[in-house]
């Protein structure tokens, strides 16, 4: 049996309000982007207008030693709930918990410890799809009036797997280039794609908040799963629309281009969103990939 080693101490931060459903499992105090492997910073903020925070986030970052290699492994989730009457919070936190549980038991233990892989083990894409379907079922059972966006990133070695429903986003920042990995499942994103409205019009379109796909709405949910490599010295940014709706890509890239450390980048992003109006809850996870310890 291989042994597991956590580099970071585990610290559970619970925010003292029944509305906040922040699930946090890493220590940010000493994180800098000079460490090998993954470094993580995150923050969620209610914004300037809302009374409740319906976003949920999850961040898990561990190292695993197996077969003479040290494997960075991380699960990062952002969910933006909707539904009113506190149900949005329940939906987003249910989604986050369900997916994290499922990934830990179906990927973390079985896959990482083997050097003979088998076709009997499901591909990561299908495990991610199953995890999201499970969250979907759970929300439909427990809070049928509510739903949530769900953006999940799983990092294993230098592989990045992103599964996604809704309009929370994942970006990859590399060599001063900010690339949006996810496609918003929103009406306006589709209208922009088809050339019916311009990206500028989309930002103020009366129906800019309408999603055509969300978790907890229908039985046969179709999640999108993308695979990317996660090269050294690049950053994964995950956020709810409270960030990208108010801070444009150029500004995000600018903030990411001069990081004294990851946590201050995240704070800057949230401060900027609030300064630009903060009309929605803002959640940001920033994951830096250092040189791999291999």
């Amino acid at each position, binding site marked *: 049996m291989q042994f597991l080693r956590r580099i970071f101490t585990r610290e559970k931060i619970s925010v003292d309000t029944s509305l906040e459903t922040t699930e946090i499992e890493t220590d940010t105090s000493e994180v800098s982007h000079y460490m090998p492997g993954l470094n993580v910073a995150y923050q969620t903020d209610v914004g300037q207008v809302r009374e409740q925070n319906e976003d949920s986030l999850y961040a898990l970052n561990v190292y695993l030693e197996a077969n003479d290699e040290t494997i960075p492994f991380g699960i990062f989730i952002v969910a933006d709930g909707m539904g*009113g009457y506190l149900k949005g919070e329940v939906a987003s936190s249910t989604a986050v918990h369900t997916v994290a549980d499922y990934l830990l038991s179906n990927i973390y233990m079985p896959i990482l410890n083997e*050097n003979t892989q088998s*076709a009997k083990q499901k591909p990561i894409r299908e495990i991610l799809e199953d995890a999201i379907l499970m969250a979907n079922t759970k929300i439909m059972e427990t809070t049928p009036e509510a739903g949530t966006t769900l953006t999940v990133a799983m990092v294993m070695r230098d592989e990045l797997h992103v599964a996604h429903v809704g309009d929370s986003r994942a970006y990859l920042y590399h060599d001063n280039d900010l690339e949006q990995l996810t496609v918003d499942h929103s009406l306006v994103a589709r209208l922009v794609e088809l050339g019916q409205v311009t990206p500028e019009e989309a930002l103020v379109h009366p129906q800019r908040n309408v*999603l055509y796909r969300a978790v907890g*709405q229908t039985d046969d949910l179709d999640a999108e799963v993308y695979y990317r490599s996660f090269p050294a010295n690049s950053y994964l940014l995950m956020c709810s629309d409270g960030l990208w709706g108010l801070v444009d890509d150029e500004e995000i890239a600018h903030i990411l281009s001069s990081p004294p450390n990851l946590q201050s980048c995240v704070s800057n992003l949230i401060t900027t969103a609030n300064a630009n109006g903060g009309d929605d809850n803002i959640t940001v996870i920033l994951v830096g990939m250092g040189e791999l310890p291999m």
Partner: protein
Amino acid sequence: MSEETRRLKVKKPSIGDQVLPKGAILQERYEILRALGLGGMGYVYQARDLRFANIKRLCAIKEMISTSPDPKFRKVALHNFEREANTLASINHPSVVKIYDYFTEGKRIYLVMEYVEGKDLERMLDELPKGTFLEESRVLKWGIQLCDVLAFLHENETPIVYRDLKPPNVMLRDKGPDTVVLIDFGIAKAFQEGQKGTMMGTEGYSPPEQYRGIASPQGDIYALGATLHHLLTRRDPKLQPPFTFHEAPPRNFNPKITELTEQVIMRSVNYDKDKRFDSSLEMGIALQKALDKNTQPEWMNQMQQIYDTPIGEEKPATPEYQASPKPPEVPAPEISAPNINKGTGTIQPLWKFECEDDVRSSPRVRDGIVYIGSYDQWMYAIDAKSGSKVWKYEVGGGIAASPCLYKDKVIIGSEDNVVYAFKVEDGTPAWTCYTKGMVRSSVHVSEEFEVALFGSDDNHLYVIDVNTGRLRWKFHAGGMVRSTPCFSDQLIFVGSEDNHLHAVTIQGKSKWRFESSLGIVASPVVEGNLVLVGSKDGHFYALSKKAGNQVWRVKTNKPIYSSPRVHGKMVYFGGIDENLYAVEIQSGRVKWKFNAKSHIISTPLVFNDAIYFGTSSGEVISLVLKNGKERWRFQTDGPVPSSPDGYEDIIYIGSTDCHVYALPA
């Protein structure tokens, strides 16, 4: 009544908290009996009109609560509402709900309407047992009625565009014949400010131009088409990426629908509004035609089919089956039909080169010379332009493998257990390497390490010096190695009949292996951090290069022998299930597949925006790279397991009919 916003979940608390209690009386006249549902701006109630004391006259009352804090906005909204209510009050049509009265009480505005006893079409769909569909002819009849009422509205003195046609806005009366009624005239819209907060569910039925503020009769036609699509397929457009009907012909979901019906629907949901029907009247006529076709006796359909089949050049006159007076001709709708290949061309070979036995080997072309082996035990070099022989060399066994070109050598294995290296210019042997089994794997060269890699039926992966043919090491792969190895990042990847894909370090040590359920004969390719390979177990796998865990897989129904071809963000491969697959590498999603109606063992070639491959029925097929539509096909006289190569607008390929062909790309 309407449950238009049942799926529209808004982040902020809804205004629907303060429901009027049973027994409440409005205007000293309307007694609230119950709430029927929650609309966008308030509840809809069933009420009793107390003026008719002796009979129970029911009505529906729609409540709108103005939430805007701006009194000016409320005033404008009220004005718009009154104007629209007056327009509607003047409409007298059996398929439009009647409006009796409206009044305000405080911030609430009430609209009194006819109470329609029945179900809306959304509920009809919800109550349908899983796996069943509404009867096509019944849906067509509703469609025809809706066309009638839309035509009535569009041609009204003040033309009215309905704008919001969708199943929950259409009621089916309980009483009488199967008649439909439009119930919600979107009056509430006048009161809606821009919605705040993320919402789920788009309209799904609205045409694209409506989001630029364009409302036209063609918009209603689109929405009706979308509604009929939903009714017949049960595929909810609210849950699909918007405006994707062109990818979703109804018969993909409900194959029982007639082609004519599908054509009418596809035309009405065309993205371009000028390509839809000109009027609801015209659409109604097209639907009537589809209905006639649908309801005519089976023998008539069969007759029609016989008549519709052209015999030679002669086309028989189409018999008249219209009982009603013949409607005007509806122009043939344009619909995209994937996998139906009109305009398929055939081509003529530029030359063919005859061998004495099967050509299973795949050609390699360089500097105007085609190199290829044959089962006749000869290795050939052929002039690419003329098809004449440059040189040939006889080996001791049939050649199934494909040549590998490296610097001034061409390297190839044979079933005589030997791998040969020849000088490209004249075929002089440079070196040979002996194994203990037939060599059907092709050779792959790593320039960096100057080694040639190949497998043998003696169960080993061989790594030899590419300049001398001397063995560096061999790796026991547990089964015959017919797959061609590939090399990336100091790792060698190769499939074996022992069911594994092996990842072996450049020092000859196993790094990892991936176990499929059956042997892996196809050759792997590496793209980024992924190793892509098909297996005889019917799956195409994407494995992580570093550890061999599955990232995604595509399930085909039969074994895969064809090796993948990567081009841009896509990977292409063929299957024994007769399909050629185009799969997005980053997601593992099948973008398109093409049914060749015969096994595909050949590895597809991507060349000049087209794709080329051979089939077991002897055809060489070319498809458009982007969408998999057929470009041409060429028939040879034997199965084509050979994979093509391309050079200066010419495609070269071998066939088991003993020929090598040069085809115009």
